[in-house]
C-alpha cells in the first residue's frame, strides 16, 4: 500500500516537505518513523509526534492505504 509522508519545521528542513512511499500492510506509524531514523540517524534525537490524516496517533497506530502521515518536532506556537 502507499502512504503520503509530510514533514514540518526542523524535520522539513532535513527531509524535505514529504514524499509518497510504499509500505507493507500492517506497518505502524512508529515503525515508519524508525525506518526514517535508520535512513537519517541525525533525526533520532527528535521527540517526534505523528499525525495520521490530521489527527494525533500513538506509535502503534496501524496505517491504511492512502493515509497522510505527518511527522512533527515539538510544537512551539504562541
Amino acid at each position, binding site marked *: 500500500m502507499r502512504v503520503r509522508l*509530510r514533514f*514540518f*519545521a*526542523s524535520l*522539513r*528542513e*532535513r527531509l524535505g516537505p514529504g514524499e509518497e512511499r510504499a509500505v507493507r500492510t500492517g506497518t505502524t506509524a512508529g515503525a515508519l518513523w524508525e525506518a526514517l531514523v535508520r535512513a537519517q540517524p541525525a533525526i533520532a*534525537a*527528535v*521527540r517526534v509526534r505523528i*499525525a495520521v490524516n*490530521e*489527527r*494525533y496517533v500513538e506509535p502503534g497506530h496501524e496505517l491504511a492505504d492512502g493515509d497522510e502521515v*505527518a511527522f*512533527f*518536532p*515539538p*510544537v*512551539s*506556537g*504562541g
Partner: protein
Amino acid sequence: MAERFAIVDAPIDPGSLLAAVADPAAGASVLFLGTTRNENAGRRVTRLEYEAFADMAVREMRQLARQARRRWPLRRVAIVHRIGLVPVGEASVGIAVSAGHRAEAFEACHWLIDRLKEIVPIWKKEHYRGGTVWIGSQQGSPEGNAVVARRRGAARSR
C-alpha cells in the same frame, strides 16, 4: 476577521477578534495577544518565523474551544495564529473569549493559550543576532532547541 479559527499570514487585528466574540449575553471579553519579544534566553531576537500544518492547526483550535466550553460557561471563542515572519512587537497569536462573567473568561483564555502551545501544530523559528534556531516546546532540554544553525562566522559565545 471572517473566521473565528484561522491561520493567517497578515497582521492580526485585535478589534476584529473582539468583534468575533461580541455577544449580548456576555459581561466580559478577554483578549490575549502573544507578541514577538526582542530577547529570548539571552539572545537578541530580531523576528520570529512561524510555520503551521494549517488544516490540522485549525481543527485543533476548534477542538480546544470545544473543550473550553465544557469546562467553563462561555459565550464565544476566537483563535487566530499568524504564520510567516512576525517582527518584534507584532502579534503572532490572538485569543478572544467572551463569557457572562470575567472569571471564566480570564481562566478559559489562559487555559487556551497554554494548551495551544502544547498541541496545536505550529512551530517557531527564532531569528536572532548571529543565527536562527527552531524552538521546541520543552526549552532547556537537549532537543528542545532541535536544530541550531548559525550563520558561518557569526557564532558568538553566549
